[in-house]
């Protein structure tokens, strides 16, 4: 061993030497891979175009929509509906009058945000612990997608269960069950939900933590990123939804099942 501390020039030469010898990766086709990623639909909504670099005013548009909806909620007579304001770590659920939903042309199969991957791969690569239901009624997901949150800061993992016995296939998305997971943080992200009057919201306990059971019409979410920008997303199946937070991650289980069934599936998340 060299006992004497290295002189400055020796240390610098050694560092340069290491820099030349590190076992770096040698990507050669990253250009193609990135181009393919950019061509993937980021989500199947009309407002996705607003997220392109050409439309930096997207967040402002979403904010305006939110202001309109919140203003509507302030009209006497519907104020009572807006009074119910629940909070789940970073998630705010607003009740408001019915919202306009996109024209009801049923699509055979919706597209989901991100690139197609496998559950194992998603577990390895996501920036949080990805969980999936172990409930035998569901089995393994048919498709798994990994995309970015609208803020571009975290992963969004979507598990798709095409058709499962006893669980109706959604008219909107053409699948039975959908699970969406992403990192949701307590003080940084506000995640709002505007629900129509035909929607019931109930507070529930899921795996020891707080959650919400949402039943009824299609829902539209609004949430705020760290920079204060407001973004929107919809619940995809227009069915019943269980929303809960576990270990810093927000889970969304969408399926046309009863509350008890949904809670049972949620308990099986591993």
């Amino acid at each position: 061993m060299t006992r004497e501390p290295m002189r400055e020039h020796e240390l610098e030469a050694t560092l340069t030497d290491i820099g030349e010898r590190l076992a770096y990766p040698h990507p050669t086709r990253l250009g193609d891979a990135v181009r393919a990623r950019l061509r993937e639909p980021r989500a199947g909504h009309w407002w996705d175009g607003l997220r392109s670099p050409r439309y930096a005013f997207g967040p402002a548009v979403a904010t305006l929509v939110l202001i309109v909806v919140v203003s509507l909620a302030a009209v006497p007579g519907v104020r009572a509906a807006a009074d119910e304001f629940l909070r789940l770590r970073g998630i705010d659920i607003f009740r408001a009058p019915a919202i306009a939903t996109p024209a009801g042309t049923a699509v055979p199969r919706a597209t989901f945000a991100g690139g197609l991957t496998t559950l194992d791969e998603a577990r390895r690569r996501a920036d949080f612990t990805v969980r999936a239901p172990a409930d035998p009624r569901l089995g393994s997901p048919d498709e798994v997608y990994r995309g970015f949150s609208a803020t571009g800061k975290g992963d969004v993992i979507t598990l798709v269960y095409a058709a499962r016995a006893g669980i109706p296939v959604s008219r909107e998305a053409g699948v039975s069950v959908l699970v969406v997971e992403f990192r949701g943080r307590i003080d940084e992200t506000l995640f709002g939900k505007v629900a129509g009057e035909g929607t019931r919201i109930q507070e529930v306990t899921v795996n020891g933590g707080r959650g919400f059971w949402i039943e009824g019409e299609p829902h539209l979410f609004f949430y705020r990123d760290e920079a204060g920008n407001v973004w929107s997303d919809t619940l995809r199946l227009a069915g019943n939804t269980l929303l809960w937070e576990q270990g810093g991650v927000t889970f969304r289980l969408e399926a046309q099942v009863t509350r008890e069934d949904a809670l049972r599936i949620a308990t099986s998340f591993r």
Partner: protein
Amino acid sequence: MSGVKRVRTDSVEGRPTEDAVLVERSRNGDQDAYAELVTRYQAIAARTAYVITGTAADAEDVAQDAFVKAYYALDRFRAGAPFRPWLLRIVANEAINRRKAAGRRPTVGLSVVEDRASGDTALSPEASALARERREIVLDALRQMREEDRLVIAYRYFFDLSEVEMAEALGVARGTVKSRLSRAIARLRAVMEGGQLHDA
């Protein structure tokens, strides 16, 4: 000294105008122009990520994610600014966040490629052994350092970034680069000599 040659495929010199043109076209939605930028900087992006993550597979993954995020962040890119350090900043953030989110051990598994045989080295066996021993000591210390310190050292000694580029890539004032680097070197020495790491 060794059969491994330093590869310099990402030099910014002589083509800043081209970068600016490609960036402008990318901002207007030209994904082929952006793919060209990716090809141009994929090597240094993956290398930077590797210095932080310590595994080649993670590094490629990080580089790819960083390029996608950079594309969607192009509207925040200051027109006329150099693209490479701006990109490296996104790469480094992505790599550091990923490591922290994964709750990985504080040390990383950086490794070096050693000479196959003494045949292709100009050094005497003794000098060669000494150089190897020094590499092992320094590399072992680098593995234990904070990502941020390793990054400063890598920008200066591995990738030969200019002070101006380092300032841009680190997001600090130009005058701060020198002190950042000397603090990182001091901490490197402290680890090498078995001392404690002290934050400035």
